[in-house]
């Protein structure tokens, strides 16, 4: 059997890659994909813990996280479209009329 720590290390690595992606990528859509990655890393660790404890609430949590993530992405894409119509770009670093 694969020990719990393997799952957790994978999850942590996954999460870190997601964070780094959010911080470094310019394209808003890729940023959203990275956010999805972070959430999936969380899901992985929830599932691992739930199976480790034999407790169902971790698994329930995963369903909710997935549902929320879907809603978040839907809203995010809508906002990106609205913004694209205004500025003809989805590069995050070019979207900075609001500053200081």
């Amino acid at each position, binding site marked *: 059997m694969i020990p719990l720590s393997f799952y957790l290390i994978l999850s942590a690595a996954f999460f870190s890659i997601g964070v780094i992606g959010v911080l470094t990528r310019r394209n808003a859509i890729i940023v959203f994909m990275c956010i999805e990655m972070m959430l999936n890393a969380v899901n992985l660790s929830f599932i691992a813990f739930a199976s480790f404890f034999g407790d169902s609430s971790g698994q329930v949590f995963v369903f909710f996280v997935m549902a929320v993530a879907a809603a978040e992405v839907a809203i995010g894409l809508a906002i990106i479209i609205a913004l694209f119509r205004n500025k003809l770009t989805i590069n*995050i*670093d070019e*979207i*900075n009329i609001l*500053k*200081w």
Partner: protein
Amino acid sequence: MITQHIYFAVLFPLIGFLINGLIGYKIKNEKVIGWIGSGFVGLSFLVSLLSFFEVTGLNVAERKIIVPIFQWISIESFNVSFAYLVDPLSLVLALVVTGVGFLIHVYSIGYMQGDKGFWRFFAYLNLFIFMMMNLVLADNFVLMFLGWEGVGLCSYLLIGFWYDRKFNGSTTADAAKKAFIVNRIGDFGFLLGMFLIYKTFGSLNFNEVFTIAEKVPLPEATATLITLLLFLGATGKSAQIPLYVWLPDAMAGPTPVSALIHAATMVTAGVYMVSRASVLFVQSEITMMVIAAIGAATAIFAASMGLVQNDIKKILAYSTISQLGYMFLAAGVGAFTASIFHLMTHAFFKALLFLGAGSVIHALHEEQNIKNMGGLKNHLPVTYKTFLIASLAIAGIPPLSGFFSKDEILWETFAHGHSFLFVIGLITAFMTAFYVFRLFNLTFENKSRYPSHIHPHESPKIMTIPLIILAILSIIGGFVGMPKVFVGESGNFFYNWLKPVYEPSETYLFNVPLYTHSTEIVLMIISVIVALSGIFLARYVYLENIKPIDWLVTKFGKLYNLLFNKYYVDKVYDLLFVEPIVKGSERILWKFSDVKLVDGFINSVGEFFIEIGGLIRKIQTGVTQFYALIMIFGIILIIFMLLI
């Protein structure tokens, strides 16, 4: 029990203020604004009067009613309730404030006619009455201080009311600023005194503090410190040496304001405060001595300056300072009743003098120099007669009100063994009679000296009726406090009325009057003679033969200049305090350190923060990823901080 609802007396002016302040600018009819303002003060007077009658019906022991409104501040052991104290003392003040206030409001409807800030004026006046009522009815020091600051605020607003007019070479705004700064010094003393009281007694409630103080004598040093600090506050508000300098400048405000705030009510707040806290004051002999000495000194000092001024309102301003000096003299020798008595009669005749002066100024199109007046007797008959009554009252001619109150002060001063202060008081009485009749003669008698194109005529009824009522009060106001030598202990209504208020403090007063009735009568006659001689001297030199004055002025030119320039006190203050702070920081420190220390320090601190702010806002780059980066690093940083 209307007394249980005394808060209505406080609330009505507030309602007036809100109405005029909020929608006054929409009301086109001045009469409506004016009567809203006056009406609510009138209602307030009515409530006070009804409470007064109700309290007179009570037993002497029950004449102290606390009307709690709500628990105000309650933090740990620090408790302050919003409550009003109705007792003989606060009722006297409330009646004077609302009564005289009402008359002056009505007068203002005529006086301020056509002013572009008409609604603003009435809103401020009503706010003032509201604050003043809080001050006199407060049942604790905090609420009193709130009223104290509130009346100060209204005073500044009203001094600077005609902010676009010139005054004494500068602007009215400068006069308001001066009043503001000088009063801050006094308020600082009051605040420190309050802190000390709280530290000593653990409470700021009048009832609690005074009950403890009555039973357990304070250490002499503590009592002296507390009372001197409180008295410093009183010198600021009541324009005593050394903080009197703001009051003459305060005459920049409209004349009804001078009458209401800077003569009849607000400036007496200091006297009221000393009287209210009498049980603390009597515990320090030093403070009592200081108060009496400063009162007497202020009285004679201000009166001497009044002798040579030419601005009609300035003369009255110095007269006010001088009369306030009398009140403090009385308080200082332990005759609190006499001081409140004089406060009341002074409110009548000084308000009358100011309103009369306003009427004169009005008739002569804003002329205030008495050298350019004269001969108004026939043009302004009502003003003339009422002004004469007020002048006689302030000079102390029996049986007008001023005679009784001033005589009681002089007598008490003498009886308590302060014969030197008595002599000063007597000299002041002479000066008072002289300057007020100098003013009177130069204004109303003789030939006219104003430009011939002006045709003065009597003010409208709305202004003269308040004058007449005040004149009546100036005549009969003194009969409530007839000297005991004539009517006996029980006949002096005013004394008996206030007696329960001062009973706690009387145990601390040692020197009981020892003199016989005949002494009192002799002194009375002396003071009347002194007053009469002042009047006749003024009449002689200003109506018959001006030569003695001219001779004096040339002979004692230096003295005259000294008086005319108000002992150069303003200049000295400028030199001692204002110049070093404003200019010294620029000149002297500049040479040494290239920095404007006093000015510069504050600025550079400000600039420092602004510069830092300029750097900080640059972090807000507008790029979201950068924000997220800082967030992530923030978490990591905190974890590291915790690990170390």
